[in-house]
C-alpha cells in the first residue's frame, strides 16, 4: 500500500509541515483475529478524511489507536500534535453541566471564555447551564463537538458522530462540521458507514477492508457539494463497489 503525500490543492494553509499522524504497518490482534493488518496511513495537516468500511472492518479500532485509547496496537504509529475525539454517542458526563463538560480537562488560563466561545460556535449558548440529560440528541452532539473543538486539536477524530441523529438534524450538523473545519482547519478523520456523508464532507475517502486500506479516492469537487453532482455520482458507484455493495438505484 503506497502512502501518499497530501496533495497541496486542498490545503493552502497547512501544507508546510509534515503529516499530523502516520501509521506504518499498524497491526492490532484480538486473540486470533487480526483486525488491523499492517496498515499504512498518513493524515496531512488540515486534511478531511472519511474512513468507510463494513462493520468489523477495523474502522473503530484504527480510530481508537489514533486516539491513544489502545495500548496494544503493534507497529508504527506516530501522532504529532493534539488529538480530540467526538464519539458515536455524545458521551457527555451527566453530572456536569454543559459548560463544565466542555472545559473538562482543559488546561488553559481562561476555560470559561473558551467554553462560551465554543458553545456559541455550535449554537448552544442558551444551553450552557443545562444538564446533559435534558439535551436533545442534536444538542448533545453539538456539545460533544464543542468539547472536542475547544481543545483546538491538530487532529479531530469523529467516530460515526452523526449516525444516531435524525435526517434533518444530520444535515444541519454536517454543515456545522464543515463550517468549523473551514475555520479551525484541524485534520479530520471521520469514521462512517455512509458513503454520501463521506462524499459530502471529505477531501479523501478511504475504504478499510480486512484491516487494510483497500481503496482510496480523492474527492476534488468544491464545497458546498450537492449529492447529485456528477463527479460524486460516479465516485459513489466506485466506493460502493469497493465496499462490496452493488449500487442498485444509482444511474
Amino acid at each position, binding site marked *: 500500500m503506497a502512502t501518499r503525500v497530501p496533495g497541496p490543492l486542498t490545503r493552502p494553509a497547512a501544507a508546510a509541515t509534515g503529516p499530523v499522524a502516520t501509521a506504518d504497518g499498524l497491526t492490532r490482534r484480538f486473540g486470533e483475529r487480526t483486525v488491523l493488518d499492517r496498515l499504512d496511513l498518513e493524515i496531512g495537516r488540515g486534511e478531511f478524511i472519511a474512513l468507510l468500511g463494513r462493520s468489523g472492518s477495523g474502522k473503530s479500532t484504527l480510530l481508537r489507536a489514533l486516539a491513544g485509547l489502545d495500548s496494544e496496537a503493534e507497529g508504527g504509529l506516530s501522532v504529532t500534535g493534539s*488529538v480530540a475525539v467526538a*464519539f458515536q454517542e455524545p458521551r457527555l*458526563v451527566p*453530572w456536569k453541566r454543559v459548560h463544565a463538560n466542555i472545559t*473538562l*480537562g482543559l488546561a488553559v488560563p481562561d476555560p470559561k471564555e473558551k467554553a462560551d466561545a465554543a458553545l456559541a460556535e455550535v449554537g448552544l449558548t442558551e444551553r450552557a447551564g443545562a*444538564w446533559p*440529560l*435534558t439535551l436533545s440528541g442534536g444538542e448533545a452532539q453539538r456539545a460533544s463537538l464543542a*468539547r472536542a473543538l475547544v481543545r483546538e486539536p491538530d487532529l479531530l477524530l469523529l467516530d460515526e458522530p452523526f449516525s444516531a441523529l435524525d435526517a434533518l438534524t444530520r444535515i444541519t450538523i454536517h454543515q456545522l462540521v464543515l463550517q468549523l473545519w473551514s475555520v479551525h482547519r484541524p485534520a479530520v478523520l471521520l469514521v462512517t458507514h455512509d458513503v454520501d456523508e463521506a462524499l459530502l464532507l471529505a477531501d479523501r475517502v478511504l475504504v478499510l477492508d480486512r484491516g487494510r486500506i483497500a481503496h482510496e479516492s480523492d474527492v476534488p469537487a468544491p464545497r458546498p457539494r450537492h449529492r447529485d453532482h456528477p463527479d460524486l455520482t460516479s465516485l459513489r458507484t466506485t466506493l460502493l463497489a469497493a465496499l462490496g455493495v452493488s449500487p442498485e438505484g444509482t444511474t
Partner: protein
Amino acid sequence: MSVLELDTPVRAEPHPGARTRRRRLPGKAWQRWISPLVLVLAWQIASTTGLLPTRLLAAPSTIAATAVDLVQAGTLPTAIAVSLQRVLIGFAAGAIAGVGLALVAGLSRKGENAVDPIMQMLRALPFFGLIPLFILWFGIGEAPKVLLVALAVSFPLYLNTFAGIRGVDGKLAEVARTVGLGRTQLIRHIVLPGALPQTLVGLRQSLGVAWLALIVAEQVNANAGLGYMINDAREFLRTDVIVVGLLVYSALGLLTDALVRLLERRALTWRREFLAR
C-alpha cells in the same frame, strides 16, 4: 411507624411531575385519615372498657400523657440524646470504614483482591449473633453498642459504594482519557460522582440498619438510652412507656431517612431534572 405517617398523608414534592399524581386526592385526602382514626378510637375504647388490659397495651390517651410527662421530667430527652449519640458515633465510624474500604477495593484490582473476599465472608455473619463476643471483648459499656452499629452500617455502604464505583460507565472513563485527565482527576470527576447515586442507596440502607442495630444492642444491656428506658419500663409493666419508646425510635428512623432524601435531592439534581421531565 404508621402512626407517625398520619401527619403527612400527602407528601409535598417540589417538582411539577408530582402534581398530576396528587390531583387524584384533593377533597378526598381526609378519607385516608378515617381508618387509622377508627383504629385508634377502637383501641381507646377497648382500653377504657377493660377489654385490652393495660399490662398488655396502654390506652392511647395514657401513652400521650406519659409522653408529655417523660418529656417534662427530662427522662425522654436524655434517653434520646444518649441513643442518638451512639448511633451518630457508630454510623460515622461504620461509614468511614465502609466507604474507605469500598474505595480501596473499587479503585484497584489489588485492593479488591485484598479487601473484597474478607468483606464477603464477614457479610455472611449474622452480626446480631456477635453480641455475646462483643460483650466478652468490650464489656457492657458504650463500646459494644457503638461497634455493633458501626459494623451494621459498614456493609451496606461498602457493597453499594463498591458496586457504584465498578458500575461507572467505561465510556466516560475513555472520554476522561481523551481529554487528558490523570488518574486522580478521573477519580474526582468521573468515578466518585458516578458512584454517588449507588452510595446514597447504601446510605439509606445503612441508616435503617443503624437504628435496628442500636435497638438490639440496647435491649441486651444498657444503663441509659431509649433501650434502657424500654427495658426498665418492662420490669414495671409500663406498656405506655414502652410504646412511647417505640414511637420515638420510629420517629428518629423517619427523620434520618428524610435527611438522606434531602441529601439525594441536592446531590442528584442532574438526575432529578431528567426524571421530572
